[in-house]
């Protein structure tokens, strides 16, 4: 069983999400996340799925998606180099000023932005790959997570460059780049 990040370009037609959701449900595919938004082309949206399955299943998901008439393109990002990100809003309880300092320090390490401040709680905006978000959740858990929401992953294939640096992303988050173990810490999925 592998996890694949599938990018689907669709036409902005009424019901296109219904078609995709209906297809996934009736064929019994296992989707971990799904995000949809406008693309660079007017009238087209880009959708990113994270699908879990063996190779034949992943192949079927793509073939069945391609059969939908409103689907223009299906890309399995996982077969090449790609960049993926997810955004999370997380509300953390703050019980005293000492905690506030500690929480803010951790947030700084994760490059999490504070987007709402109250006396008893902070809301952070965190962007990164799935492992980073999972790690941040683990760090915040002892303080008390009031609630959180994640967008699900979005992904784009990388451009093939001629330089030796091909495939290295500018401004990689230090947490992402240096701390692969955060992936294995992904036990506290937010659901």
């Amino acid at each position, binding site marked *: 069983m592998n996890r694949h990040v599938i990018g689907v370009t*669709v*036409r902005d037609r*009424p*019901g296109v999400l*219904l*078609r995709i959701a*209906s*297809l996934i449900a*009736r064929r019994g595919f296992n989707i971990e996340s799904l995000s949809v938004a406008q693309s660079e082309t007017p009238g087209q949206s880009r959708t990113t799925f994270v699908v879990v399955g063996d190779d*034949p299943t992943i*192949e*079927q998901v793509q*073939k*069945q998606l*391609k*059969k*939908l*008439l*409103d*689907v*223009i*393109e299906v890309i399995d990002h996982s077969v090449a180099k790609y960049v993926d990100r997810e955004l999370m809003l997380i509300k953390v309880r703050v019980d005293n000023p000492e905690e506030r300092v500690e929480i803010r320090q951790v947030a700084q390490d994760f490059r999490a932005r504070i987007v709402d401040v109250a006396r008893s709680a902070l809301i952070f905006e965190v962007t990164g790959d799935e492992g980073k978000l999972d790690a941040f959740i683990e760090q915040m858990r002892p303080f008390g997570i009031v609630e959180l929401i994640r967008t699900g992953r979005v992904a784009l294939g990388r451009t093939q460059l001629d330089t030796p640096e091909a495939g290295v992303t500018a401004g990689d988050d230090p947490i992402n780049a240096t701390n692969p173990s955060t992936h294995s810490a992904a036990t506290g999925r937010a659901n």
Partner: protein
Amino acid sequence: MTGSEVVMKMLERHGVEVVFGHPGGAIMPIYDALYDSPVRHVLVRHEQAGAHMADAYYRASGKTGVCFATSGPGATNLVTGLATAMMDSSAVVAITGNVASGLIGTDAFQEADVYGITTPVTKHNFLVKDVRELPRVLAEAFYIASTGRPGPVLVDITKDVQQAVFEGSLDVKIDLPGYQPDVIADEADVAAAAEAVSAARQPVMIIGGGAQSSTDEVVAFAEHTGIPVITTLMGIGAFPPGHPQALGMPGMHGTVTANKSISHCDLILAAGMRFDDRVTGKLSRFAPNATIVHIDIDPAEISKLVKAHVPVHGDVRDVLPRLAAKLERLDIQPWRETLADWKDLFPEKYKNDKPLVSQEVLGMLREATKGAGIVTTEVGQHQMFAARLFPTTRPRSFITSGGLGTMGFGFPAAIGAAMARPGETVVCVAGDGSLQMNIQELATLYKHQLPVVICILNNGVLGMVRQWQEMFHAQRYSEIYLADSNPDFAKLAEAYGIEGHNVFDRADAVKRIDEALAAKKPVLLNFFVYEAEKVFPMVPAGAGIDQVILGDQGPDEAAEAEPREAVKA
């Protein structure tokens, strides 16, 4: 021009001659435009039957079938017909009226989310809320339904759009960037297929519904290479059943020879078929030694269930001649002799020690028609008997619900097929259970006086369910008994103005069949047949196709053996 007139004009432009439908509130403007249109209309008595007629119209003629229904219950009644057409890849355009766009989503009278309900059972569907889109949507609907792997398309049109004034041209451009149905198979794939086939010493070809429009190519390929040909239920007629290379039908009720050949072959050349579970049985036991070459126009069918070692994404009609050009006659004489031995050892047979059995009625029908007519079937034992004993010699002539297995399909399908091929007699093989699922269409048949001969193989029970209950549920016959409350079908036909006869014995059966076929008008023949007859051979659900129960189809000495002993774990 109103939206409704646009609908009728676009139907004319697409060569539509007949529509099967039933009017109602939300589609009345279209029925008003129909009043002045040259397009004929067949008034059905239930929308489901209209969808089946449109489906069979396509299957019999290759021309897209069209049906109309009103909003809400009219449209939901189409659903079974659309799902049937979807599973068997039938080109149907269904047009439904919906409530006015301002009322959509308000739970208005006769409102249903038809777009949402029909999404999973159509190739594509549309909800039209702006009359300016109507011509393009209709053009796209016909294009989508009939190209690539055909399928049903539903166009739901709100009542205000039907009434709105359209100012513009009907010469519209199709705009479907995500749809490229015209595929030409890669030369490399065809070459790889040729290499695999030429290396095989025990090959079989399996053709399905996708070969119904490629009969010439299939026959030419088979005769050029000498490859034996298995025909699935959907492929019947695409290869002549009496051809020396024909091995018959595979799968759950397939011939012993077809199933044995799959278990022993070293290559399967699959063309326009999709390895349905009723064909393969348990997948892990299916064709264990075979290289799979799979030609299909729908890439999602390739390696969906059975992994294709050589995938060929393309049209059977295009691929087979190209493949033949790369092949010599195959060097497979010992294999052909083995297959001939199996055919001799396992002929089609039945005991006719009862007053009348289903199999011999089908034999009489084949004798009388020489297999050259059009046959439609309902679903159940009679369907399997018909597939083996009454296959047609011509393509697009054996019309049956294969994928969905829809009881109630066969009778309306006979009317649709008779409309599609005027002058030809259609034999509808039915059971006493199935026929009652759309029996109201006797009125439609009477009105149009079509040459349809309904042959009920009346055993008084739901025969296939009874067979499973006898074999796998310890003879606990649960809710299968019909005889105590069946109507007198002959009298019922007469009540509709249709000639009907109850038939009890052999001599009368032969006579009635000959008369009915010659009558060139609707006739219902109600054959009382033996209740406990079972369809053999049978591969039990979940077993491999090598684990067949021969029943009465075995060599004579094995016929007495307890059926279930033949199934090994």
